[in-house]
């Protein structure tokens, strides 16, 4: 194997490794939005899931406890969002933004507060082991793609599995069908006996929980090192909101979208290396500003958003009642 193909493999490998949290965040937000709620608190929810998941994982030396705690802590954020917007009829945008402010505040409060007592991931064998790559038999021996796609830690596979399950759930189960109806036309769903409040609560909590898993992943990916100035989540929550639109509210497309957004995200880091490895074919990468790669996901999403609104209809994934609260006796 020569050096340049190593760079390429590493680049592709990192597209997956670094960006899987986006998939968690996106799938979580898709479930939330399919219930008709626009939760702008993804960033904060992921941060809460990350820190509590990590701390619980360290305290118990168990990957599973970490995952469950991350899910539960982030799920609580979702529950709070549901309580405020569904039961108390508060504005969704404001509530979501506040979840982010609050979540990040809590993240730093807890992290700073622990100070010297902050646990290092290297002392926690279960987490280190949990984040080690597991080679998929046979497939991982494929050239380039083997290492890039089939030689990852279990949480990568879990993320893809959750996305696939969410897709199946939305399209092939009756609860999924009802959930979509709640997001499209709550009055119609209500009139045939779908319990709107229950559906919203369950999916807002579950959606936030899944975002929390993504946060937990980021904690491990950052080797659990807490920095006072930068949150682990680092804007991934906002990209996830964009990705939901890009993926047209479809969890399977979200996998693809994660790779596309991840490609730009990672290219920004690997541009120099790739240009060096393939000076002939990719030398021009050096000439491009790295910020362009960061901005591209948002630019593409804005274009998609505008294009779909211009075309109207034609099988849109965007739930018709997104962002609107439902009050049955409203006239």
């Amino acid at each position, binding site marked *: 194997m020569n050096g340049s193909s190593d760079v390429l493999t590493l680049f592709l490998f990192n597209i997956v490794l670094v960006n899987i949290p986006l998939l968690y965040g996106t799938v979580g937000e898709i479930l939330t939005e399919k219930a008709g709620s626009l939760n702008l608190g993804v960033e904060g929810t992921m941060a809460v899931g990350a820190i509590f998941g990590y701390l619980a994982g360290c305290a118990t030396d168990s990957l599973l406890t970490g995952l469950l705690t991350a899910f539960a802590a982030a799920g609580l954020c979702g529950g709070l969002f549901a309580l405020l917007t569904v039961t108390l009829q508060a504005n969704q945008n404001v509530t979501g933004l506040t979840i982010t402010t609050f979540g990040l505040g809590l993240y730093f409060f807890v992290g700073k507060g622990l100070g010297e007592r902050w646990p290092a991931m290297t002392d926690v064998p279960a987490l280190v082991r949990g984040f080690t790559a597991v080679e998929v038999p046979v497939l991982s021996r494929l050239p380039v793609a083997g290492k890039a796609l089939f030689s990852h830690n279990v949480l990568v596979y879990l993320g893809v599995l959750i996305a696939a399950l969410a897709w199946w759930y939305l399209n092939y189960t009756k609860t999924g069908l009802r959930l979509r109806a709640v997001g499209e036309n709550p009055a119609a769903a209500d009139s045939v006996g*779908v319990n709107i409040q229950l559906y919203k609560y369950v999916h807002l909590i579950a959606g936030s929980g899944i975002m929390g898993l993504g946060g937990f992943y980021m904690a491990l990916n950052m080797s659990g090192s807490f920095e006072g100035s930068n949150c682990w989540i680092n804007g991934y929550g906002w990209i996830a909101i964009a990705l939901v639109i890009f993926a047209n509210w479809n969890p399977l497309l979200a996998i693809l979208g994660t790779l596309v957004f991840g490609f730009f995200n990672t290219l920004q880091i690997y541009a120099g290396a790739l240009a060096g490895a393939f000076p002939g074919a990719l030398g021009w990468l050096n000439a491009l500003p790295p910020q362009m790669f960061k901005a591209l996901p948002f630019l593409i999403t804005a274009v998609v958003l505008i294009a779909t609104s211009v075309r109207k209809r034609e099988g849109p994934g965007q739930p018709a009642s997104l962002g609107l609260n439902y009050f049955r006796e409203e006239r």
Partner: protein
Amino acid sequence: MEERYAIEMRGICKNFGRVAANKNVSLNVKPGEILALLGENGSGKTTLMNMLSGIYKPDSGTILVNGQETVIHSPEDAKRLGIGMVHQHFKLVDVFSAADNIWLGDEHSGPLLKKNRCDVIRQMAQKFGFDIDPQKKVYNMAVSEKQTLEIIKVLYYGAKIIILDEPTAVLTVQEIDKLFAVLRRMKAEGHAIIIITHKLNEVLEISDRVAIMRRGESIGTVDTAQATEQLLTERMVGRKVTLNIDCPTVEKTRPLLEIRDLTIRNDEGATAIDHVSFYIRGGEILGVAGIAGCGQKELCEAIAGLRPIETGMMIHKGDNIVGLSPKAILEKGISMSFIPEDRLGMGLAPSLSITDNMLLKNYGETKGPFVDRKSGRAAAEQVIQELEIVTPSTETPVRRLSGGNVQKVLLGREIKSGPNVLITAYPVRGLDIHSSYAIYDILNRQKKDGVGILFVGEDLDVMMGLCDKILVLCHGKVMGVVHAHKTTKEELGLMMTGALDLSSKYADKPAGIARDSRIEEVEP
């Protein structure tokens, strides 16, 4: 032995804010019976039925289902109790297929969406004699298809008590026949059916009994076998009461507003106003009678420039006003006020004060960047005084006022603007006698000043007292223009329900076309 009712409602009351939608209403229906619920729009039929389907909860009163006292908290409860309702405004998810819309509420076939669900639905539909494509998306469906889907949906859920809110309004004659055949079959199978309608011929054709509502109260029930169109009409619109409304005689001018061959579509795309012609002279009040919801709203909106028209002409003092902006029409002196059922929907900004609402149409006329609140307040004070509006102050938000006072604010503003054509729809909706008379006086004063008034009304007695002429609409078509003081309530009632058509009574003078028309003056 006492008969068991499928549904029995006793003493139901329901208020929306200060408006009483149902006052002590009682109603019952037996299994194997079709009950027609008759009444004008706004008489509280739909509200009453929504309490059976779990959309609203009654403020007081009891509901018995199969003899058991029950509280229906939600549509889920209603479904479990075997109550199914086909709403007038369809409750369908547009992006779903027909089958999926039905599958939403299915509770028997397990948690997965079966591949064969379309076939199941198709077979079910065929069994009941309906023909639908289960895979068709709702947004691709015609209105009648959506209606059919709603009915199939209810049947699929196995409802024993079926409520249909104006099911025939959007169906063709053949489809109505099919629907009635289905209803009769279901009746034979022991279903209890409540059908809301105001088409008398259908009531007589399909129902066993008729329950009649007027202004939120139940008027009584008659067996269909003993009912005639006259009897039902009389009950529905109320007995003739002697009202002493002034109708001053005023010298009439040439037509101010002429409508010729006007066709308008409603929001659903159906024809709301169908080749209608009429004219209004200065110094006269032209009443528009008709069962509510047969094009009045669309007509008012079209004249005010708020709704595009399909065909036809609208000529004001010899000028074509078709295609003009609402503002340009206002400036011509045509004022429109429409009191919708919720009373606040159009014409007023409910959170703003009386002063601000006074300024709504003329705030732009003053010079400078500021709103002239002083004149607004003066106008508000004047209107409050003249129309005896009860309010804490001129700065009270309109939504805090009681219904009658809200209406006076709206009408007062319209009159203050000094229009030459005044279009007013339901200005006395929900008002007590005293306030109503105040409003009639206002209109009569305008009439004496030479204003042409189009009065869209509900109460026939009032219209016969107040108006000079009455135009009768039935499903968007003109049934005739009659002299208000020469006609009878029975005649009007028959025309409103489509049983009597006087539109071509005089061969030499078609209804609604003035002899001294100014239309010829208009450039084509």
